[in-house]
């Protein structure tokens, strides 16, 4: 069930209407059933997987909390991690590693080596709920949080439908207490939730899906052979597509959660206004970047063991972060570009004896030079993210040495401007007013007017493609 379809709107309406008529315990049961219906809508077979990993983690966490013996606690943690990451590895990465192994053997001269390939579907959202389960079990192990007493509460924490498929990855310390306590209906927050959903639909259906038309044409060669113009159109279009797509998804997820009285963490904070790569990762997919920081970078040693280890940890974190996105070397390179960029940034800052990037206001010309540079660096990395193979990415980038211009490219850039500039202006506005979403602190009537405008834009300009959200694949 995609968020931008009428069936989801109907589903959400029915669930919300029923939900607020029930008492807290019954609300949780209703949400759990609704979340499993939502997930089973793709394929009921996937329900078994999420149910198994939920029960295993629930039991392991309780046993870890009940035990005082370190080796037993560690064994249980390891068991849980093996099961969670094992599922992820089998379903998402098995074929990738087998293919890579076969290619290596072929390169070494071993031909016709029989390689096992699994014919399996990737369960939607497995990367997201696995990370949430890992966070829970690690936090219980570190005694940061107590284990959930009720299986229903824990299962709901894992499967709550607004975040189930593509996040934001919720921290147990943030979401679990909300699940375990009664929620109260708040009219203002409910209205904010509706606006967030409309804002998300605008970002997804109007901005992302229209930019996707150009990005798809450029990356598939339908705009002509690679040249500066084709690469620019393709990467700019994809940059706004993926931003509109994922931030739109996150807005709809947060808005849906808010209708049910939950609060989800902010996942995007004007990422294309970042003045450094470090700043970018504090604004882009925040729930993932903070997860990687807390559960990978810091356990690896973070910046506590000297400069070399810090650079190694940065690279490892970003490479694995890249691989998390998909089982393809293009994602590893994408992560590598960011890891390398972050390392270079850190090195330069050390040279200049600065611990943190310099904060830059919207009025500083130097800040805008940095913003433009970072935006283009991010765009370069998007080439690898978007193309199906490294060879394709390199072939496209080779086009940067060719300049061809035809009038259609001008139309394409104007088309891109029509759909990307509104989002850019919204970002500028939010940055200027330090708001989480548009007109957060504006009078109610104006916000109603904004809601109507968003709805009109979605009605008139939504592209008619059942485009799955990009992050649904991950």
């Amino acid at each position, binding site marked *: *069930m995609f968020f931008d379809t009428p*069936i989801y709107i109907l589903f959400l309406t029915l669930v919300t209407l029923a939900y607020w008529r029930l008492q807290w315990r019954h609300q949780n049961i209703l949400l759990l059933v609704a979340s499993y219906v939502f997930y089973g809508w793709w394929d009921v077979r996937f329900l078994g997987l999420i149910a198994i990993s939920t029960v295993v983690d629930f039991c392991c966490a309780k046993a870890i909390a009940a035990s005082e013996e370190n080796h037993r606690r560690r064994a249980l943690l390891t068991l849980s991690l093996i099961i969670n990451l094992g599922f992820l590895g089998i379903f998402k990465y098995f074929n990738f590693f087998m293919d890579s192994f076969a290619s290596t053997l072929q390169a070494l001269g071993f031909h016709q080596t029989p390689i096992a390939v699994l014919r399996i579907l990737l369960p939607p959202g497995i990367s997201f709920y696995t990370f949430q389960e890992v966070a829970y079990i690690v936090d219980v192990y570190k005694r940061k949080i107590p284990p959930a007493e009720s299986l229903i509460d824990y299962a709901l924490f894992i499967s709550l439908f607004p975040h189930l498929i593509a996040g934001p990855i919720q921290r147990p310390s943030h979401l679990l207490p909300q699940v375990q306590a009664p929620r109260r209906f708040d009219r203002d927050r409910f209205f904010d939730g509706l606006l967030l959903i409309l804002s998300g639909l605008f970002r997804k259906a109007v901005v992302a899906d229209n930019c996707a038309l150009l990005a798809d*044409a450029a990356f598939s060669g339908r705009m002509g052979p690679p040249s500066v113009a084709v690469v620019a159109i393709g990467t700019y279009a994809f940059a706004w597509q993926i931003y509109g797509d994922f931030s739109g998804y996150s807005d709809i997820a947060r808005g849906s959660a808010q209708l049910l009285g939950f609060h989800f963490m902010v996942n995007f904070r004007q990422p294309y206004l970042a003045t450094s790569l470090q700043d970018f990762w504090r604004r882009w997919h925040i729930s993932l970047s903070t997860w990687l920081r807390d559960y990978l970078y810091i356990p690896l040693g973070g910046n506590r063991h000297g400069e070399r280890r810090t650079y190694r940890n940065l690279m490892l974190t970003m490479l694995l972060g890249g691989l998390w996105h998909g089982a393809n070397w293009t994602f590893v390179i994408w992560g590598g570009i960011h890891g390398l960029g972050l390392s270079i940034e850190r090195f330069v800052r050390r040279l200049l004896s600065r611990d943190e990037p310099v904060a830059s206001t919207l009025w500083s010309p130097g800040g805008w030079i940095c913003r433009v540079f970072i935006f283009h660096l991010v765009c370069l990395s998007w080439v690898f993210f978007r193309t199906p193979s490294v060879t394709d990415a390199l072939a496209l980038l080779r086009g940067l040495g060719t300049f061809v211009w035809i*009038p259609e490219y001008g139309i394409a850039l104007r088309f891109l401007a029509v759909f990307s500039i509104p989002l850019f202006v919204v970002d500028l506005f939010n940055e200027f007013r330090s708001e989480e979403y548009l007109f957060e602190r504006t009078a109610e009537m104006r916000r109603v007017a904004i809601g109507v405008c968003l709805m009109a834009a979605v009605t008139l300009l939504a592209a*008619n493609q059942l485009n799955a959200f990009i992050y649904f694949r991950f």
Partner: protein
Amino acid sequence: MSLAVEVAVRAGFDRVSKIQRRIASEYRLATMIGRSPCTGHRHVLLIGNSLLYADIQFDRLRDAIGTECDVRRFVIEQTGYMDWYYGLRRLFHNGARPDVVVLVLTARQSIGSSIRGDYSAEYLIDKNDLPSAVRDLRLNPTEATDLLFAGVSKFWATRAEIRNFVLGHLMPDLGGLMQFSGAVNPTPLVDDEVEHIMYARLARLKAISDAYGAKLVIVVPPIHEERDGAAGFLRAGSAAGVAMVRPVPSGSLPSRSFLPDRFHLSEIGAAEFTGRLIPLLQEQLERRGVRRSPATTAAVQSSRASL
């Protein structure tokens, strides 16, 4: 708000959009074909996608076929076999009684297993056919419910056209970009594979036409690329007992006969193609061997009487 949008779209969209107005009018005329009491006429219905619209000079064809024929056209762009399989069922179900149905499709458009999208639910897929369409098209539950909503809501079905209409006014030169970047699949088709897929499909299409006493004629238009699978398509047609007409082989027309998208014919190409199509189509009309069954004749007469 949603209700207001739905009402507004139902009330106004067909009037303000030229394309929508044309499709709605052609659809209405297509469903009425053969129901008028002028019994001396033969009723010919041409159906297809933008290739029918661009490649065939309809007025010239209609004039050439003669006054004793009632020739009508129903074009919906970006449609393929699956659209027209269900489209034909819907037309017959809604009362269309043509003597001859002429479907204009390339081999590639015929072997595809997709539909135009939610728009198909507006004019092509009947609500009663939705369950079998969902099975045929192997739609997932989300796509299936989307199609179901499109069958109920005109706004949902036509939202892409609404966007195109708005964008067309905001950026009048957008059509040039879309034509330039349009997806033309360059992979050559294998005739045997086309034949294998199309035999059953054409037989299925013929069965519908036969049930209503109409003769089915398939016109295969030329495209720029030579290996278009048309030979396999023709073989499948003759094996299934469907009349196949291919006036101009693909790859035989010069580049100036095509529009910049190298897919649709230019005016020069359309003139050439129509000129060669007319005698072949006339021959098919003369040869029209399919007679109406007594049950169909009775059904036609009763539907005429009810008008």
